[in-house]
């Protein structure tokens, strides 16, 4: 187990993978420009039957769940006081910073009247019964909290001269002393808006298949956000450890994977308990589109539970990685189904995203990965590294 302090990785910023990501970013940027010049229909297949398309579902509903690493780890490290997981905290937080910030930016592409977006903050326009209003304000607040939580990484890296000039060491001390308040907010806010992402669907009523429409949507969305948060931490840690040859966190990840498995069991229990209680379980085997989607989704949720049930399989990196991928796919499909695939607006409407529409999402995700790479190379995010061995000045 590594107890080394976080350090910048160093190394060149512009590498081949970085350049490839950049190409996708440019393609996405081109279509974003078209969207603003010619309207959404120019690049997107969204319609008045399916007014919520892949931008919201992939970038916000699924994207923020992928950004729940910081939330999920803070719950474990600070609320349940499991300090062993501390080395995973900062990279998880960074993932959250980008996941959420870029979800916020993606919303600006999706908003049909983006120039009015500030109305969300105007008290005289506030509509407190609106679930979307709660989500919007809560996500904005959480983005701010995430940057504050991550701010010490900047301060640690800042030259002493600048710190003295702007009296920043006082800020550093302040942040360190009162960080627990922001940690509290950093757990409260995602609890609120991730559950609200489920409540949003309560308005859909008969447009949403009864396999997904339930009063338990808020709880199911909250649990799935946590499982995806742990999933993302495991995925990111495994990928980063392999590509940057960092000390292995295998023992820690094996432990973490069992936490995730426990939550998955809870999710499935609520999901099936609710279907049974409402007498809708029969629809799962009706053989129609919804039942197929439901069965795929359930298989993806159940697979990681089966893999991680044994300690021996947990310790196997390959199997654990497989379980992680399945877990993330399960949560993503659950959200995609609720918001898009299990929705039937009637009157023969159909929707399949266009290539330019998807390229905008791909561009946003590429930007996210590029920023992540820049940050871990220049800021103290990841635990002790080869850069340390090669004597890189910190």
């Amino acid at each position, binding site marked *: 187990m590594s107890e080394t302090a976080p350090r910048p990785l160093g190394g060149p910023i512009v590498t081949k993978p970085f350049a490839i990501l950049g190409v996708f970013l440019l393609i996405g940027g081109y279509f974003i420009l078209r969207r603003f010049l010619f*309207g959404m229909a120019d690049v997107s297949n969204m319609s*008045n039957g399916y007014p919520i398309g892949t931008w919201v579902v992939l970038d916000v509903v699924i994207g923020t769940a992928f950004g729940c690493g910081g939330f999920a780890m803070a719950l474990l490290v600070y609320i349940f006081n499991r300090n062993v997981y501390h080395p995973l905290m900062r990279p998880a937080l960074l993932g959250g910073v980008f996941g959420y910030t870029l979800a916020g930016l993606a919303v600006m592409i999706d908003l049909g009247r983006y120039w009015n977006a500030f109305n969300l903050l105007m008290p005289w326009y*506030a509509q407190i*019964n609106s*679930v979307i209003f709660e989500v919007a304000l809560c996500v904005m607040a959480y983005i701010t909290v995430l940057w504050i939580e991550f701010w010490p990484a900047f301060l640690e890296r800042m030259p002493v001269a600048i710190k003295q000039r702007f009296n920043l060491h006082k800020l550093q001390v302040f942040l360190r002393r009162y960080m627990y308040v922001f940690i509290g907010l950093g757990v409260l806010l995602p609890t609120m808006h991730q559950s609200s992402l489920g*409540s949003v669907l309560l308005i*859909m*009523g008969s*447009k949403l298949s009864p396999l997904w429409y339930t009063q338990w949507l808020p709880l199911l969305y909250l649990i799935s956000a946590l499982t995806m948060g742990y999933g993302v931490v495991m995925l990111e840690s495994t990928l980063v450890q392999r590509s940057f040859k960092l000390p292995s966190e295998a023992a820690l990840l094996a432990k973490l994977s069992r936490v995730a498995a426990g939550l998955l069991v809870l999710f499935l229990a609520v999901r099936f308990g609710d279907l049974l209680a409402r007498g809708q379980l029969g629809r799962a085997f009706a053989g129609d589109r919804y039942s197929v989607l439901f069965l795929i989704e359930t298989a993806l949720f159940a697979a990681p539970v089966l893999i991680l049930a044994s300690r021996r399989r947990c310790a196997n990196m390959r199997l654990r990685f497989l379980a992680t991928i399945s877990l993330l796919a399960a949560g993503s499909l659950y959200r995609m189904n609720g918001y898009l695939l299990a929705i039937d607006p009637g009157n023969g409407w159909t929707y399949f995203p266009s290539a330019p529409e998807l390229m905008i999402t791909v561009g946003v995700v590429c930007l996210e990965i590029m920023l992540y790479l820049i940050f871990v190379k220049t800021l103290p995010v990841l635990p002790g590294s080869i850069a340390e061995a090669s004597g890189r000045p910190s």
Partner: protein
Amino acid sequence: MDLERRRFLRGAAGAVTTAAAAVAAPVNEAAAFGPREPKTLPPKAVGMLYDSTLCVGCKACVSACKQANGMPAEQPASLAAWNEGTWDAAEDISGKTLNVIRVYQNGTMAEKDREQDGYAFVKRHCLHCVDPSCISVCPVSAMRKDPVTGIVTHNPDACIGCRYCVYGCPFNVPQYQFDEPFGRISKCQFCNHLQAQGKLPACCDVCPTGASLFGLVEDLQAEAERRLAAQPGTLYEFPRGKLGGGRPGHEAPIGHYQPHLYGEKEAGGTQVRYLTGVPHEKLGLPKLPDHSYAAVSEGMQHTLYKGMIAPLALFGGLVFLARRSSKTHRDEDPARSTDEEDASS
């Protein structure tokens, strides 16, 4: 390890208590899940009675609506080149069409208002729900319901274009202009600008048969019930324009109505009533429960966020636990304590 375990258990106990405080309320509530109180019809609610059996499909209402609301002509792609694009042939309501007449066709279409081998007309526009989903979802109060007339209006200056009103409306009424760089939400506002001048909504004003009939919702309800009670085929004096408005009506046989008066109870009730000869599902009027989904959604929100008590209690517990954890962490983290000294020196 033992120490750590004990500390974990202590933390867990605290966390569980905190969580219980926050979760207990919603869980109890969810067991006997309570939607918000249903809303009631405003005192002077105005509305429309659309009698499908009277409609002759002339689309004068569609044309008048476009004129009254300054909306452009619209053609399906296949007809775009026809007659230099001046011919309005909208297939459904859209960002540029606030009302439309659609036709139901079956088999030989031999007889009007018959399900088998028949045809029928239906009008699509906003039903001005008693408890509208569009108002419930709108984060910036762009959708509003007039407290007296009950007309649901849209304010484009407030609207951010998130399109949740489009997504959440059970009747698919609000429409966003996807083909415009600066698109807006379009929806029927029951010509409230004309009503302010004492005029009728354009569609009811021009309807030659009184198929679209304007009036107070209570009166329209009584009129609809009279028509339903009358013997099909007997002669009946149908009013035009406004119910009780003094315009000459016309005499015609009572239609073979479906017994269901659509719009009275759907989605918690609306201010529009549909009398049809063909089952309403066949005409694109969806089968809906008697309660509004807005009441379900707001019931959940009001339970979870009642007085912000649950979130604040949760926040207090979280801060307490986080504070204790970060203290113990700092003690055992050598890298951090040196940093601390460095920073405070």
